[in-house]
């Protein structure tokens, strides 16, 4: 999964897609995930990283990540592959 080129993300979690003109806001956890995607990390690596640092059960995290990636796709912020 790759973050689309041109997507701008500010430090406060503001996201802008110049291709579509849409803007979004994401929370701190979302920012961290997008940062890791930008670094080329895989879904497994992201999961392991969050589990090692945050108080969350694996099952819940996987459900939340699945949902978050689905929304990133819906909003054309990421591309699969």
């Amino acid at each position, binding site marked *: 999964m790759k973050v689309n080129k041109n997507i701008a993300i500010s430090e406060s979690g503001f996201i802008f897609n110049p291709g579509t003109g849409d803007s*979004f806001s994401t929370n701190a956890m979302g920012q961290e995930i997008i940062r890791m995607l930008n670094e080329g990390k895989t879904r497994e690596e992201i999961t392991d990283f969050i589990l090692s*640092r945050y108080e969350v059960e694996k099952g819940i995290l996987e459900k939340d990540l699945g949902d978050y990636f689905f929304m990133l796709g819906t909003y054309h912020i990421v591309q699969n592959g």
Partner: protein
Amino acid sequence: MLPYERPIITRYNPGITNKFGSRVDYFPFTQIDGVPVKRIIDEYGSPCFVLSERTIRDTYRNALRAFSTRYPKVQFAWSYKTNYLNAVCQVFHQEGAWAEVVSMFEYQKALQNGVSGDQILFNGPDKTADDLRTALHNNSLIHIDHFDELYLLSEIVREGGKKARVAIRINMDTGVYPQWDRFGFNYENETAWEAVQKIMGQPNMILTGLHCHIGTYMLSTRAYHLAATKLAQLALKIKSQYGHRIAYIDIGGGFASGNTLKGSYLQGSDVIPTMDDYAEAITTALLGSGIPTTELPYLYLEAGRALIDDAGYLLGSVVAIKRLSDGRRATIMDFGVNLLFTSFWYDHRITPAQEFSRHTEDMVVYGPLCMNIDVVRENISLPLLNRGDQVVVHRVGAYNMTQWMQFISMRPNVVMIDREGGVHLIRERETVDTLNQQERTPAHLRANPQQ
């Protein structure tokens, strides 16, 4: 380890009015009258209705003040159908309210609550001959709804020596659409006058009052001004034609509560008239009607929702979070339209009962029933919720605890918080035994012949 928050992303829609309601609560609602929400749920379960005795009394006293500082003779009658839990009724009766009922079981409840028969206003289109006999026997005020009831009552008063104290319910054009012309006798087409003439011709009926109830959640104080004016004119006409003085004018209920009507962009509490506004409209109409000051009738009021909505809360919990196929977030609660009948009319305010971050999500809020109509909020913006989180639904005191249905899940506990912060169970949750108690299974259909 760091605290975790579910990742979310929300799209901005610049320039478009936010259909998810503008106001998001910034603080969790953790206690009611000083009692922690969590403690109530731990002790009484989720969901659970909570009533604040303090709010009931404060609301009632404010309404009484608004009217009695403007008009010399004011009497409230608690509208039982709005919430007839005995503890609630008793708070109103302790404050001085009489009872307004629309059925025999409400009537019996009022008597059992210690209300004297002559302080019960008996409304409704469906009073049986026995109901009328009981009301006559107890000297109650019988509000006649239609000619069939008038004829029935005139037969009944012929049976015995007692005189019936009656009022007629009148419907009229108050500039409000749709006009409620289904109940009572019409003012403009003279049906009301015809009813007056028939009653004045009955030696065993005393025309004591004139009644109307022009609608519910009425945002127009002008409609009340018109209604009060028309009833006062009718009272004057009766005085001039028969020399008979009407003892009271009953303006009914219908004052709005602070809830927000579905689909309204404006918050209810920002647009509804205050109790003082209603009182001003009604009392100025009566005082300016031309009725001599010494002969002013009593003003009776049957306000329901405006007196109890704010005092009621529904506590509940998140059952599940889902994503719908169109991408919308859906939150499933352990309460639905089975307990919150008023979610068909209102966009109820819902507040989380625990700390949350500044991020919010737009969502649909569903109840737990397996049916499509079970929608508590079609769209609302709330902080991130997780399974097990607790929420408080506000202003649910009116009609929910009388129109709730036992379907798929049972009616939950109802508690009242007294003025010292004591929590009292005022209606126990129903169980499978509550249901089975009423059922009779024929012997050949029983699983266990000993049953």
